[in-house]
């Protein structure tokens, strides 16, 4: 491939300038429209806040992950369990019923 002349190169660069800036403006203009549509959409379908989150599904959801959420939830569970174990233990410190 032989090197294009400077004027050819400048023509190329000029067309890049026009096409590029147009594309950037078109892209971000479409994004403006999208953002406005999102705002409308979000307004139109307000989050069913309390409803969704109060369903029984929520509990598991919060602790769903096996591989990484583990420790925290574990700890929380353990605290709950320990609380009950301790209170059970304190109720007279009787030996476990066999």
């Amino acid at each position, binding site marked *: 491939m032989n090197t294009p002349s400077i004027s050819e190169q400048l023509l190329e660069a000029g*067309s*890049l300038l026009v*096409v590029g800036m147009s*594309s950037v403006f078109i892209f971000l203009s479409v994004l403006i429209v999208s953002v406005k549509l999102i705002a409308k959409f979000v307004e139109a379908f307000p989050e069913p806040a309390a409803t969704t989150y109060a369903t*029984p*599904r*929520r*509990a*598991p*959801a*919060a*602790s*769903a*992950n*096996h*591989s*990484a*959420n*583990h*420790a925290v*939830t*574990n700890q929380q*569970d*353990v605290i*709950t*369990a320990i609380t*009950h*174990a301790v209170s*059970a*233990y304190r109720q007279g410190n009787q030996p*476990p*019923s*066999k």
Partner: protein
Amino acid sequence: MEKLQILWQSTAIPHFEMGQIIMMLVGFGLLYLAIVKKFEPLLLLPIGFGALLTNIPLAGFSEVGGLLHYIYYVGVDTGIFPLLIFMGVGAMTDFGALIANPRTLLLGAAAQFGIFATLFGAIALNAVPGFEFSLQDAAAIAIIGGADGPTAIFLASKLAPELLGAIAVAAYSYMALVPIIQPPIMKALTTPEEREIKMNQLRVVSKREKIIFPLAVLFLTILVLPSATPLVGMFCLGNLMKESGVVDRLSNTAQNELINIVTIFLGLAVGSKLSSEAFLTVETLGILGLGAVAFSIGTAAGVIMAKILGKFSKEPINPLIGAAGVSAVPMAARVVNKVGLEANPHNFLLMHAMGPNVAGVLGSAVAAGILLALVG
């Protein structure tokens, strides 16, 4: 004009294939489950995002030189990422409840029936036209019943890499669905009286027992099941780092920054396997169906085993805790606790369910080792 032509050809629009569009919808669906339904978001969010990226025409994320290509081959093809996650999970796991009540290991064993029964079922599906699972495929699918993400990904990457995407998605989805899938089975197999059974308090476990335990597990695995030592070994390393108490900074890093970094990459890499050729097949339907069966059978086997154990035990055993044997830590244990509380609002089964729960992790790692040894 020519520039505009090039520009148009360099948009994705003229290159989209139907399969890619559908897989993007699948990706969006996974993001929806992760963000709105909070299904295993730590994995399903990156998996869903990876599915979006890998199906973009012209972007080449999963082709040679693409980001997801590198991540997959460095981390999943080699098995490194699931093993590092397993190390981190090991560093998060407390075997105290299991050591205090070692018989719960049998519940973790019983629940693996879900795996092996599903393997049988997958082969039986070959009778249906359209299905042609090899024994390797069947084993990789069956491990979904182990309810353990890293184990499933590790085994699938070794036995059936082309099914890895579907298997991982099924595994994490069903783990998220444990609170929906398990309770009906648990209730069907138990009487209200059984569900009310109170269990004795667990004894205190010493620090030394907790240190020796992972070494004992490793020793046993080395002796009889070397093919399971990558999974079990890294798990025990993590647990030993935690329990030994002498390398806290390593243990903390393993269960925080390192597992987080690897989780992002693992999720993206799994997502990169969600291409239309690999996912939009009748096999995927089979995998999803078999996965649900595997979970259900595992749950049932665990509960039934707990009932049997209870018959022969001097100490009372609530059969519900058997359901936790499928692993899916810690959700299955929480489900047990919840179902138990419904029967008796003063009966906290959580700690009792943690034993079978972590036993299930070991059980499915052992099952994975057996499958690797026999069909790998």
